[in-house]
């Protein structure tokens, strides 16, 4: 059953069908203009209640998983009447659980025309607390009334795994062009839209595209929402190209969670850049009281011995819902404030960077809380001097520097019109490592070996040199390089364990990563952050790869 053929206008009255059609169009075109057209076509026809859910999912909303993967697998295997091993083989060929299920189920016996909003509100979400028997009955019924591409979507919606290649900004653009509203207004109104605490509704959608009211844009009185985050661009040229250093404000670039701290109407909210509300996760930050009408932009870090702890330590905090006093003592979090967006209830994003900085210093110095630290401005008389200071980044546990134009306004997203923020990162750590295991990728790369495990040399107890795995990486190669590596893997396979192939070690890669920490959970005793392939080292034999000793030497 094809997923791509479902744009037949005869079916357009069926809401799930419509949304599936939109998904297929977005999924099959790589051209931004084509995606924009598809979005506009969909939103110009969709009922507000359905459009509300569509905005939610397209903008990256992730509802909690309604039904566990285990049950989805079990029930779909049952309904299709195939044994488990055969399901597993299908999954290996497809590379996506929802798509596998969509295709192994028998063809539908019925047709339905149920709206997306009804699907979500009356058919999917209510299953959350149901017994497995009830869920089984419901799923068998749902699956029997949907085509393969609709089933695929349904399972993505149920499992919280919906993803499609559109940015939130593109959705904003489509709505702004349809409604005639300024892109900044729509963008502002969309803040918090994907927060799982608030259910999309026809009313919310209507107010999203309603005509602009006087003075709108800034002052969401009493509202919890943050502003669209202003994002930095990587600096690839020499900083000298930026001109006079006095026109630039330099700060450290921290490796934590980007967040906005919002205080309005006596209440405080802490938002991550993914627009998740994380107020309860960091009480030492959300407990700090400001004047009403204050919004700070900054970075959350675990802070120990007057410096940031590794990201791995912060991760231990992110996952936790209940925080013991032990955790709070061992892993204290701080908010490094680097910008002020709202002051005295006024949106000051259009004020110059230098002016906002001045006000930020006033706000922070008036508060004496251990959880609040102002991001220091780094002083240097010329770029060369700044470069020398930047060389100390690693020992300060930061990723490099941020360079902000002193006249920059605070933009929305990765825009450059308002002025620029550059991230001037230090080069990654690198080692040469040997490819020892490979696994097939997912989605576009489902039948190619694209996910690799890399090893470095280490002496075992008897003094014998052995390869120990230390990192997995799957990015950094071109499609053409992947095809080459895939061919070598197929030729040099020595063993298969389920989906994993162990290969004869023949290929050396330069692996880059951002951080390194001790880890008891990894065989090599260390864990690296953001490992990726920088290049294939055809010029190196496996004996010339690096050793675990080299990696240990990188621990600070």
């Amino acid at each position, binding site marked *: 059953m094809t997923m791509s*053929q479902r744009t037949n206008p005869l079916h357009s009255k069926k809401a799930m069908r419509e949304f599936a059609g939109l998904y297929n169009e977005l999924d099959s075109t790589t051209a931004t203009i084509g995606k924009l057209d598809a979005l506009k076509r969909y939103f110009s026809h969709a009922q507000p209640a359905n459009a509300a859910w569509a905005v939610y999912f397209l903008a990256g909303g992730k509802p909690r998983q309604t039904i566990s993967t285990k049950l989805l697998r079990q029930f779909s295997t049952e309904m299709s009447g195939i044994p488990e091993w055969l399901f597993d083989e299908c999954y290996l060929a497809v590379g*996506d659980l929802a798509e596998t299920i969509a*295709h192994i189920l028998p063809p539908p016996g019925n047709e339905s025309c149920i709206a997306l909003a009804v699907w979500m509100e009356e058919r999917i979400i209510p299953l959350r607390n149901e017994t497995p028997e009830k869920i089984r009955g419901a799923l068998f019924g749902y699956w029997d009334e949907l085509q393969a591409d609709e089933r695929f979507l349904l399972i993505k919606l149920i499992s919280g795994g919906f993803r499609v290649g559109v940015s939130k900004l593109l959705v904003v653009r489509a709505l702004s062009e349809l409604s005639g509203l300024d892109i900044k207004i729509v963008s502002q109104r969309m803040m918090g839209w994907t927060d799982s605490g608030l259910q999309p509704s026809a009313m919310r959608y209507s107010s999203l595209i309603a005509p602009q009211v006087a003075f709108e844009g800034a002052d969401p009185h009493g509202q919890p929402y943050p502003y669209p985050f202003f994002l930095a661009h990587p600096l690839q040229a020499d900083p000298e190209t930026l001109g006079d250093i006095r026109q630039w404000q330099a700060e450290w670039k921290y490796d934590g969670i980007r967040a906005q701290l919002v205080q309005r109407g006596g209440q405080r909210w802490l938002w991550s850049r993914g627009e998740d509300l994380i107020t309860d996760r960091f009480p030492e930050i959300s407990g700090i009281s400001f004047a009403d009408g204050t919004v700070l932009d900054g970075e959350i870090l675990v802070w120990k011995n007057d410096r940031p702890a590794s990201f791995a330590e912060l991760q231990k905090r992110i996952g936790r819902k209940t925080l013991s006093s032990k955790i709070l003592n061992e892993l204290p979090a701080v908010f490094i404030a680097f910008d002020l967006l709202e002051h005295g209830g006024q949106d000051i994003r259009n004020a110059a960077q230098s002016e906002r900085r001045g006000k930020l210093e006033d706000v922070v110095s008036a508060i004496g809380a251990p959880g609040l630290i102002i991001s220091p401005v780094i002083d240097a008389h010329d770029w060369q001097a700044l470069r020398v200071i930047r060389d100390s980044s690693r020992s300060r546990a930061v990723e490099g520097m941020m360079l902000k134009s002193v006249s920059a306004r605070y933009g929305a997203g990765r825009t450059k019109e308002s002025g620029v923020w550059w991230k001037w990162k230090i080069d990654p750590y690198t080692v040469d490592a040997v490819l020892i295991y490979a696994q097939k990728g*997912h989605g576009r790369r*489902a039948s190619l070996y694209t996910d690799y495990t890399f090893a470095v040399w280490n002496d075992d107890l008897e003094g014998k040199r052995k390869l120990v795995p230390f990192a997995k990486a799957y990015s950094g190669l071109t499609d053409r390089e992947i*095809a080459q590596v895939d061919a070598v893997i197929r030729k040099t396979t020595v063993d298969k364990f389920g989906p994993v192939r162990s290969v004869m070690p023949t290929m050396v890669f330069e692996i880059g990563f951002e951080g390194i920490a001790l880890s008891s959970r990894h065989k090599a005793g260390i864990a690296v952050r953001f490992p990726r392939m920088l290049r294939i080292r055809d010029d190196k034999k496996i004996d010339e790869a690096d050793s675990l000793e080299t990696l240990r030497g990188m621990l600070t």
Partner: protein
Amino acid sequence: MADLVVAKKEGLFCVPGQFYIDPWLPVERAIITHAHADHARPGHVHYLAATSGAAILKSRLGDITLDTLAYRERTVHNGVTISLYPAGHVLGSSQVRLEYKGEVWVVSGDYKLEADGTCDAFEPVACETFITESTFGLPIYRWQAQNSILDDINEWWRRNGEAGRVSVLFCYSFGKAQRILNGIDNTIGPIICHGAIETLNRVYREVGIPLPDTLSISGINDKARLRGALVLAPPSAAGSPWMRRFGDYSDAFASGWMLLRGARRRRAVDRGFVLSDHADWPGLMAAITATGARRVIVTHGHVDIMVRWLQENGFDASAFDTEYGTEEDDNVAANESIAFKESHA
């Protein structure tokens, strides 16, 4: 009794008959199930194939020594009775029925159950042992009726035409292209075929398969005539300079592999039409059951999986290692086309 057919390094071999079926190395005597390159190789001394496939085979292999059999006609060689039955895969494709001392084996070649207008429809043949292909031997593969896919192609072509764009449909030159030509609505607009496809169209027309009129690109001087045209081209033409003349076009690929999202994305075409000349999973199972065979030997495709499934369902199933490609196999083709696209970026 000893096995009638075994796998040798040259190919599948009929022991008492002393001949091969679709061998991949040069041999004295070869029965050819169909003219796709991985089944019909050059260099054998004597060829035997279905009468309806003779013209295609000669057009591809040149001046070969070829004997032909009409479907269901019998001939005896070294005591083995040989007859050919339609496999429904492409023009002239056959299943090979071998009978020796009362025992019957059938070698399927490549096959498809749904009938189309370009070749004789698949016909089940009763046998004790059935040697089957397994290109799409996974339960995820289930085809929609050909007509609904052709409707989708017509619709896509019509809409592109309305938007003033050319529709470029990539498909394999032999079989798939003619099946599409035979089935589509040729009133929508002009049809242009790549030279590799037109060569085969000529042979199809000569043996009386109805195909609509097609144009070659060199015959079109006025570019305005391209508007609203459907262009059929082999996958290897993707990204080539040949494509440039079509300006702003929408592209699509017709293959069973287009069922999966990952394969569609790797192809990087606007549309994937799931149209295969091979049996889908229900088709494979129906074909096996219809033979009444208790013993099944699986070749090229998802061999291990089919063997295990058949064993669990009471068949005496095993595998033959062969060197047939799954000519719709996307992996090699995808890598080629990626490399091609990069070098022509």
